[in-house]
């Protein structure tokens, strides 16, 4: 009997001792870091900007009242020779322990990416068990990383979430940008057959006004965070920005298009028909011909007609067939633009090198050394596109086609 009680006592003590009080962190003692920005100052030290969520103000805003007194986030800056020093030194300014497990966004200064490169800054994020490598990386385009983090946003109260959701939905709807996580970024940096591409964000408007609470108290915000361009890297350094259709050419090749809109000219009218891509699949393969690598890119796109600005009879299959042919040329043009520009930059952002490695590991061993500088710029890429118009929406002929025939 005595033994049983003894055992119960031991179990209860064990329960009390093992329930995690050793490294306890009270919720009121941690500062949830939503985003981290990295700049560099004149002395060559890193300046980290830490965006911390003010939980009370986020909740207040959602309930429709009480959210007006203070912004939903607070930012702090700290300097250091590396990320860990910067983060630890930041504790001189912040009343709580910085908690990085919910950090979803890392913003990198454009100048830093151009001059020093991004090769070395990710180690702390990769190594730390608290930090998640699924966090998204973006490059601050034409502004400091700090400004991106300090800008207050509407609708989605936490700027880090606003940036990530913007990226997610623009990737689905427009397709010129893509979400790249730290893990993917590192993978591309390490691989000899692929270079990283990372989406840029800019502050559209007055960055100073964007920091004030008044920014979100009006219907047209003074400063908006906007996805802007794809940053192309070579040897870890930012070398070029791809914009518009060139950027979309990159997402086509990388098979990241989930939906987009393509305009084509029709019977002399510019940009007369809008085609909405619903699904697509890109296959990249490599083969060796006479000792030279050759890349074949095959794109298959399916979609609907979204809008027509010319009287065109969409009930006729041959018309749709012609539209498909024009679309194929248009997509081919975008892809070729992107390839040419990347070849000029001597940066294989498409992973063609990896395709060669997969198909012909022996040849790759020889080509690997100067892939980006010698072989990639001379690469011949054979682009074939298949575009399908599946449906034309609720109407076949546009309403104005009958108007014109009446006249």
């Amino acid at each position, binding site marked *: 009997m005595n033994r049983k009680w003894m055992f119960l006592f031991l179990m209860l003590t*064990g329960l009390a001792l093992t329930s995690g009080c050793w*490294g306890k962190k009270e919720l009121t003692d941690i500062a949830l870091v939503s985003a981290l920005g990295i700049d560099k100052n004149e002395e060559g030290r890193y300046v980290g900007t830490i965006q911390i969520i003010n939980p009370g103000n986020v909740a207040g805003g959602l309930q429709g009242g009480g959210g007006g007194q203070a912004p939903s986030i607070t930012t702090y800056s700290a300097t250091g020779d590396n990320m860990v020093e910067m983060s630890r030194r930041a504790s001189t300014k912040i009343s709580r322990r910085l908690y990085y497990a919910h950090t979803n966004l890392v913003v990198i200064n454009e100048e830093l990416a151009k001059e020093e490169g991004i090769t070395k800054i990710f180690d702390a994020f990769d190594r730390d*068990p608290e930090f*998640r490598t*699924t966090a998204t990386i973006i490059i601050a385009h034409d502004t400091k990383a700090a400004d991106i983090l300090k800008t207050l946003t509407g609708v989605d109260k936490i700027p880090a979430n606003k940036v990530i959701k913007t990226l997610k939905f623009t990737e689905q709807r427009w397709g010129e940008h893509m979400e790249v996580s730290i*893990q993917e970024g590192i993978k591309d940096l390490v691989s000899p057959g692929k270079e990283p591409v990372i989406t840029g964000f800019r502050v559209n408007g007055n960055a100073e006004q964007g920091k004030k609470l008044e920014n979100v108290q009006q219907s047209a915000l003074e400063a908006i965070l906007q996805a802007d361009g794809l940053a192309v890297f070579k040897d870890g350094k930012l070398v070029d920005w791809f914009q518009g259709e060139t950027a979309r050419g990159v997402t086509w090749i990388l098979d990241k298009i989930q939906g987009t809109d393509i305009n084509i000219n029709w019977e002399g009218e510019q940009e007369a028909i809008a085609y909405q891509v619903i699904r697509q699949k890109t296959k990249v393969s490599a083969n060796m011909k006479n000792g030279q690598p050759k890349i074949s890119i095959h794109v298959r796109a399916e979609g609907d007609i979204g809008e027509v600005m010319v009287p065109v009879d969409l009930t006729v299959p041959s018309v749709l067939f012609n539209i498909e042919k024009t679309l194929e040329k248009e997509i081919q043009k975008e892809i070729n633009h992107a390839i040419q520009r990347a070849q000029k930059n001597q940066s294989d952002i498409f992973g063609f090198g*990896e395709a060669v490695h*997969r198909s012909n590991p022996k040849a790759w061993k020889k080509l690997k050394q100067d892939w980006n500088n010698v072989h990639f710029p001379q690469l011949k890429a054979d682009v074939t596109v298949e575009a399908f118009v599946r449906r034309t929406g609720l109407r076949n002929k546009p309403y104005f086609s009958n108007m014109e025939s009446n006249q």
Partner: protein
Amino acid sequence: MEKAKISAYQLFVLILLFEHGTTLLIPLAVEAKQDAWLAVLLGTVGGFILFWIYYGLYQYYPDNLPTQYVQKIIGKVLGRLLGFFFLLYFMYIAARDLRDFGEMLVTVAYPDTPLFIVNALLMLVMVYTVRKGIEVLARTGELFFIIVYLFAITGFILVIASGLLNLTNLKPVLEEGILSIIKITFTQTLYFPFGEVVAFAMILPYVNQSKKAKVAGLFAIGLSGINIAIITALNISVLGVDLVSRSPFPLLSTIQTIRVAEFLERLDVYFMLTSIICGFFKISVYCYVAVIGIADLFNIKESSRLVYPIGIVILFLSITIASNTSEHIKEGLQIIPFFVHMPLQVAVPLLLLVIAFFKNRKSR
């Protein structure tokens, strides 16, 4: 010898959980790059042969523990000495595995807790189970086997559902040629995890259906080989070769990248639960075979009395075998396979089988 019996199915479950013990935790055959899964499968084939050797020895002496039959095969003094070496080996590997799990927990989840506390708490549970005997351990195994499989299947579905599986990472197959894979098999995957089944030579006499034991053992090794190969291939296809080779716990990194429907993410606990359950069985089995072996060798009637002292020895050994993680891993991958695993898992049992074969032929 403890008076206990386990069924062939229970043996199957125990071997399966045992094999998954540390293999879920650490990267296997990273030198084989994207072909690591092939090296694991080749290791499984080797595992079949090794199990056949242990089973062959068991068939000659179905009622004796290995510590007893080595004395019959090579004489009392040498046999006792060899048996003693085996027991030291079991205790040492138990300590190594305990250290592996302690390191994982401290690195991943409890950065502020000392390693000793983590290891002591793990050891406490295992010592309690081992004290209750092999039957209890086997029944616990049956229970957890289902749980582990549920975790494994849901985890696998989640990885696929989040669209992380990138099979192109597994290409090109056999980049370095088949010879390098065979080399890695014989320097690594054969001994760890498949050769470690040598611990079950001590458990085979407890199985009540000796014929079925062979089938159960081979099935368990085959299935765990396939499972481990799938996990290895999964890690590589999700993370890529480079990241796997840089991660001390690749499966954790794989699980961490799962993101399904915005809310199913950060499932680290999945990994922790599964690996700790399997690790529990691995260390418990080692601990148990060390206890019954010592009881047998030193003629101690009540083997359960030995459990606590041996548990404490394993616990302290786990702390003192290495001063940091790198040293611990380096020893495990470069020194142990050649100087400890190879002789004790392959050379000695094979030699014993040959001698036993001739001895028994003569007597007949």
